[in-house]
């Protein structure tokens, strides 16, 4: 690339009004939060009307839609259940998501107050805030997510250093190999009649 950036004179300056309409992202530190507020109680109403059909009355999920509550203590087990309460590090991670994407199929249809309220309600479902909590810019920093400390930066280059092994074994690298699992036994592959079963007559 050229050492001195070239200005091509292409593109139009964005006005503050234009930006405001699209600038919906919210950060963990509260930067980006809209005006407004919502209580757990108001949130319950929004939730039951707009969310519960998919996510279940208690966030337990209806059918195969995502589960939003419970799952605490499962992360280190054989069946980890990742929810707002068990896994999400920040309230921003789902406030921001609800604001842009939920309800599924009717995105950006909630008012700011409704987003605050339903967020408060989901936090309450997960025992993170109490029944009287009102979420707003002002109370934002009061929310402490249980799994905030559950994440660490990509450490593959250190933890998996052994994989940088430019001279891998080529001969008699391991004892004779046994088959320990069969996809055909599990049989979850979609049927496909176009696949010839027996290759050789």
């Amino acid at each position, binding site marked *: *690339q050229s050492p001195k*950036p070239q*200005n*091509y004179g*292409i*593109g*139009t*300056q*964005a006005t503050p009004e*234009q*930006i405001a309409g*699209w*600038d919906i*992202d919210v*950060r*963990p*530190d509260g930067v980006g939060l809209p005006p407004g507020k919502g209580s757990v109680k108001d949130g319950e109403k929004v939730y039951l009307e707009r969310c519960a059909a998919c996510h279940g009355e208690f966030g337990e999920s209806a*059918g195969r839609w995502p589960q939003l509550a419970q799952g605490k203590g499962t*992360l*280190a087990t*054989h069946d980890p259940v*990742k929810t707002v309460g068990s*896994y*999400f*590090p920040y309230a*921003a*991670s*789902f406030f921001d*998501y609800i604001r*842009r*994407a939920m309800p*599924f*199929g009717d*995105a950006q249809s909630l008012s700011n107050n409704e987003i605050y309220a339903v967020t408060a309600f989901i936090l309450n479902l997960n025992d993170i805030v109490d029944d009287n909590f009102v979420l707003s810019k002002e109370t934002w920093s009061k929310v402490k997510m249980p799994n905030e400390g*559950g*994440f*660490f930066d*990509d450490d593959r280059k250190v933890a998996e250093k*052994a994989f940088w*092994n*430019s001279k*891998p*074994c*080529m001969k*008699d690298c391991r004892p*004779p*190999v046994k*088959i*320990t699992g*069969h*996809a055909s036994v*599990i049989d*979850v*592959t*979609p049927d496909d009649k176009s*696949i010839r079963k*027996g*290759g*050789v*007559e």
Partner: protein
Amino acid sequence: AAGLAAAGVVGRARANDANLPPNVASWSKTLGDGVGVRPYGKPSPFEKDVVRRDVQWLTASRESSVSFTPLHDLDGIITPNGLCFERHHGGITEIDPHDYRLMLHGLVDKPLIFTLEDLKRLPRVNRIYFLECAANSGMEWRGAQLNGCQYTHGMIHCVMYTGVPLKLLLEQAGLKTNAKWLHVEGGDSSGMNRSLPLHKALDDCMIAYRQNGEMLRPEQGYPVRLVVPGWEGNIWIKWLRRIKVGDEPWYTREETSKYTDLLENGKARKFTFEMDAKSVITSPSPQVPVKGKGFLVISGLAWSGRGKVTRVDVSLDGGRNWRTAKIDGPVLDKSCVRFYAETEWNGQELLLQSRAMDDTGYVQPTKDDLRKIRGVNSIYHNNGIQTWAVKPNGEVENVEVG
């Protein structure tokens, strides 16, 4: 040879003698469709089974799901546009290009809005890159599950992109000195958003609007997507609507609830962007059984998110012994390469494996090596060595070995 006979049988099983020598085939005597009758061409009707497929039990709805590239039906390194796997979170977004806008704001000197015409007027580059979803092979952590490389490895495609270097676009707005991360956002109804480190944005990212020469397909983000070479597909934002420059990451739902890699101790890695070197044998594989005894070409794809693939080894005995395969065709940075290994097959059981190496010295690990470090709850970034068992009748199965 046995191979000769078997090959003949397969071909003739459904053939119509009237078209075979010494007879002159019907199509050699009559006219077909003229030019211009098919202004935009399609594959032969006889290739109707070469399609993307989805696994319906995977997700609650097809609007937030995945369909897989039929890798077993392809060769070379280019994925034809109609077969590039799909991954949507709100269905296929259909954008009128006249109404398309890209907003660039935040820690910049001058926030800007670009029309599609604006973007097309800027300098552009052309690069072949693979795009792999971090969840590719994600169903296989606990053991062999899906029978077909389309399902086990089909969340990848490799095309030539044309677009504007992201660096050049950022320069048009001018970065503030405290700029460190970008918030990149899609215009789909999931408003797909991720945090992109500035150093990557200034390195090789592209604002792409073409794939394989023509405009992006709707499924791939028409009219504009972000290209983040070598990094997990989720961050290659489709239907790109907005870029906001900031000083720290956003921890969006897609980089916390999803696309973090849960280890056995309950802690999760975050911001695991690079796709580790990986490979898969695409033929033979469960959907393309061995077609005859005798000479056999083993073929597959290899790639690395860290640079160029330098070597691919193939094993016939589940990883006890290895031979180096031949790489054929272009070897490009963060692109797929095609490899071939030749053997003679006479009905013996085979345990086929391939392992890729890249120019950082990384060697694709076994699944067990990966599990030792990561456990089996990680969902994402499963780049373990795949095993296919070839049975005496030529059928091929996805198996786990130990």
